[in-house]
């Protein structure tokens, strides 16, 4: 039986949803044009993950196995819509920046993956910790990628111009091909360090 700390940390390092499990690629590549957007998307996804994990774990003994997928989707979609409405009301600029990718959190494989793969087989407490770990790992990955892409593609970090006015940003990184290349290189770096320190 893994300890609670291991349950938590696995989401960040050993089973990082982005760098190890390669889940949720679509929003990752599309949204990380700036670090702020990446971070915002990460937090929004974490909220959805946390809520859905809680509910799924809570009702895990009541839902007949054959209808569990529709049931989970109902739950996840509800929380995504709540997130969308709340963001629109209270953080309109982030809402506008993330745009259509907020509703797309529903199909983020990470959410359904944790619901199906963990929350329905584990206690409420563990599910919460799992969600927190995965969510933080996800947010971390998105933010790092966002920083890289924003720095190279626009010369700034979190909106603050770092590179000065004579820096001509490499527009490649502000667009999808650059996202793939940046993510690929980050994956290579992380896997190199994983192997070096004997992780997993």
């Amino acid at each position, binding site marked *: 039986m893994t300890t609670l700390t291991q349950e938590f940390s696995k989401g960040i390092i050993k089973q990082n949803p982005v760098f190890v499990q390669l889940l949720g690629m679509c929003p990752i590549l599309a949204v990380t044009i700036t670090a702020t957007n990446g971070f915002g998307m990460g937090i929004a996804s974490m909220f959805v993950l946390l809520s859905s994990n809680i509910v799924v774990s809570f009702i895990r003994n009541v839902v007949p196995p*054959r209808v569990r997928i529709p*049931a989970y989707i*109902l739950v996840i979609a509800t929380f995504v819509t709540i997130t969308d409405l709340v963001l*629109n009301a209270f953080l309109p600029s982030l809402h506008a920046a993330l745009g259509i990718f907020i509703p797309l959190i529903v199909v983020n494989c990470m959410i359904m993956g944790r619901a199906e793969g963990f929350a329905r087989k584990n206690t409420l407490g563990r599910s919460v910790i799992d969600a927190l770990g995965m969510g933080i790992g996800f947010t971390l990955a998105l933010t790092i990628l966002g920083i890289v892409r924003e720095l190279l593609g626009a010369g700034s970090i979190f909106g603050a111009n770092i590179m000065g006015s004579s820096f001509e940003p490499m527009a490649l990184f502000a*667009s999808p091909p650059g996202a793939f290349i940046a993510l690929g290189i980050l994956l290579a770096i992380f896997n190199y360090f994983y192997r070096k320190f004997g992780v997993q």
Partner: protein
Amino acid sequence: MRDGVRMALVLLIIGAVCGGLLAGVNAWTGPIIETRAQQEFMETLRRFFPDVDRIDEESVDGEGYFVCYDSAGNLLGVVAQAKASGYGDGPIQYNLAVDNAGNIVGIRISSHTETPGIGNFIETEEWQQQIVGLSIDDPIAVGQDIDTHSGATVTLRGITGSIRRVIDVIGAEFLGFEGETMGLDIAAVSDGTYTGTGSDVTVEVTVSGGQITEIVVLEHDYTPDYFDKAEGATIARIRDAQSIEVDAVSGATVSSLGIIEAVFNALK
């Protein structure tokens, strides 16, 4: 309990609870979003016309036009809440501000579904600066005073065409512009039947004895509701006045102007 019934029941309950939760959140956030949109809108108007004191809201062809007056009652300009169809699934909703001399003083995109990275150049300051300053007398056409934008042709054409149309409507409806002075001496036209095309409408005009005796619309591409409203009245006005310098039908300006243009093109 039979399996099927239990499954259906569980889903039903989950659905009901989720629905209720959503309704609650929506009721809570809805007014906030609404108020904020309103405030943003007033902000926008003020950005175009800082002295705006009073607004008249009009509706032309289904779109909203806000005629802005200052505290002394002078007409400052008109802000249109218009829709353009671009490449995305939904319309590009934008505001266009035109001052009382027919010059574009501002444009703001409120929402769109254009492809991020390709069609959303319309949100950039750079592109919008190209629009500001153009006037009703300028062509406002892609390739002429509007630069092409490779990879986003549909988006660009959609919004440019819409701006052209909106500024014409503003000019005709609120600022008293008559469009191109279309000089036409009907009495000098020889008898016969002529066909002419305006924007999206083709008409057939019969002239006899120096008078227009009949105008028939052959085909058009306008929204039926508005066009039907315009067709009868405009044709009647032209025939009664024996001139194309007639007023457009209010509420269906674009269709009316189209018919007038078509008649002009037929007889010129």
